[in-house]
């Protein structure tokens, strides 16, 4: 657990992202970016792209490979599909973030839960609305495996995997410094089938400092 030295009053951007909404914003190299879990155990599904060449984007397997570790926390470098560092996590009061679990989608809700869950709002639809707003020539092809900030997806030495109750709580945050100009795309997860969030998706807050 590493606390930040930044004050919210000095932030150049400070915004609340409601559950079920997307957020698309550029983060310049050298800027510091914080996501705060306002009410606890919310999943902030997040993707990063090189702001000037979105074919370069966050890669879960390259991030795992370079770090030889599954969970993200202070010191973790977020690695692109070209093996380059996009951002480095500089502070974290949650302790652990997931990069294995990906995003919910209407199609995977059917597979995971039941056929009648298909109409429910899901992260992939939110990501799609987000990239449509960014106005690059992007489509589903550009949705890579995302980070789930504040989610706890423990793996056992025997190879079991579960979505456990969160290690997060109200006011916990993760903070990272951009090493290149990146575009951040967040889907603040609306999942109502997973007990991790007590079936109640809640807002997150995003802040930026120069």
């Amino acid at each position, binding site marked *: 657990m590493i606390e930040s030295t930044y004050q919210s009053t000095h932030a150049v951007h400070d915004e609340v992202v409601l559950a079920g909404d997307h957020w698309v914003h550029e983060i310049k190299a050298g800027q510091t970016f914080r996501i705060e879990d306002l009410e606890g155990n919310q999943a902030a599904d997040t993707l990063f792209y090189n702001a000037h060449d979105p074919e*370069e984007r966050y890669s879960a397997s390259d991030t795992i490979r370079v770090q*030889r570790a599954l969970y993200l926390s202070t010191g973790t470098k977020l690695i692109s599909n070209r093996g380059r560092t996009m951002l480095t996590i500089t502070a974290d009061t949650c302790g652990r973030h997931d990069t294995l679990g990906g*995003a919910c989608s209407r199609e*995977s809700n059917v597979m995971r839960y039941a056929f009648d869950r298909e109409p429910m709002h899901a992260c992939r639809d939110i990501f799609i609305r987000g990239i449509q707003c960014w106005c690059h020539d992007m489509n589903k092809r550009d949705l890579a*495996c995302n980070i789930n900030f504040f989610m706890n*997806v423990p793996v056992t*030495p025997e190879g079991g995997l579960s979505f456990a109750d969160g290690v997060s709580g109200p006011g916990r945050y993760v903070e990272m410094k951009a090493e290149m100009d990146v575009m951040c795309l967040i889907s603040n997860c609306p999942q109502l089938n997973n007990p991790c969030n007590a079936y109640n998706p809640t807002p997150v807050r995003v802040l930026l400092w120069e």
Partner: protein
Amino acid sequence: MSLDSPIFQLELEGAGMWSRVIGRNKTLRLTDLEGGANVGMMLYHATERHERYNMPDTLKGQHIFYLRAPYCLHSDMGRLMASITKDTVGWHDTVCGASDAESVLQQFGENNYQKSRNEFYRNARECFLIELCKWGLGERDWIPNLNWFSKVVADEEGKLSYVAGNSKAGDLVELRFEMDTLVVLNTCQHPFDPAMTYQPKRVRLEVFANDPPMDGDASLMVRPENARAYQNTKDFYLLSE
């Protein structure tokens, strides 16, 4: 059903690459010929290539961190791409990704074509991108790949370690395709293989025709998620054929 006469077979050298469409109701058998092989693999729907193998849905849909028989490979559209119907290995990695030029250079040193002709050191990232490009795919289609025959375990803090000796000469794994699938693979070493020398291993590929799965099929029954995903695949073909 026994699979005794392959309709296709090929021996791939270490650091070889291959891509082909394998139709549903066909089975791909991979055999580790020397022991210690690694087959990096990416999978795409043969005609709708925006649909791909999805590591997160495969893992969370089956509550596992690795792959073995009788588990399945899920696409990102809630459908099944393939089922692992036979497996003498017991643990295959799908989270650690692929070696790249820098990691191969750091581990094994420089050995280029000018110096060594076809004995030069290849890496999995470039092999994937070369084969993907032949099908009109590229970096935008990059996904977490499978690493057949390789075992990586996690400790309580999520630190990963490579388990040597996981696969022996003669070990094999069989994938029964439930969807017409573009299979892109290479036989470069696993990115965590601690070998001090560059020694990618030979692998045999064989393809067999199989009957459609029957009621009570182990792969489709091991998790209710697999049965629903298979139903989604059947529904897709019901409308598209």
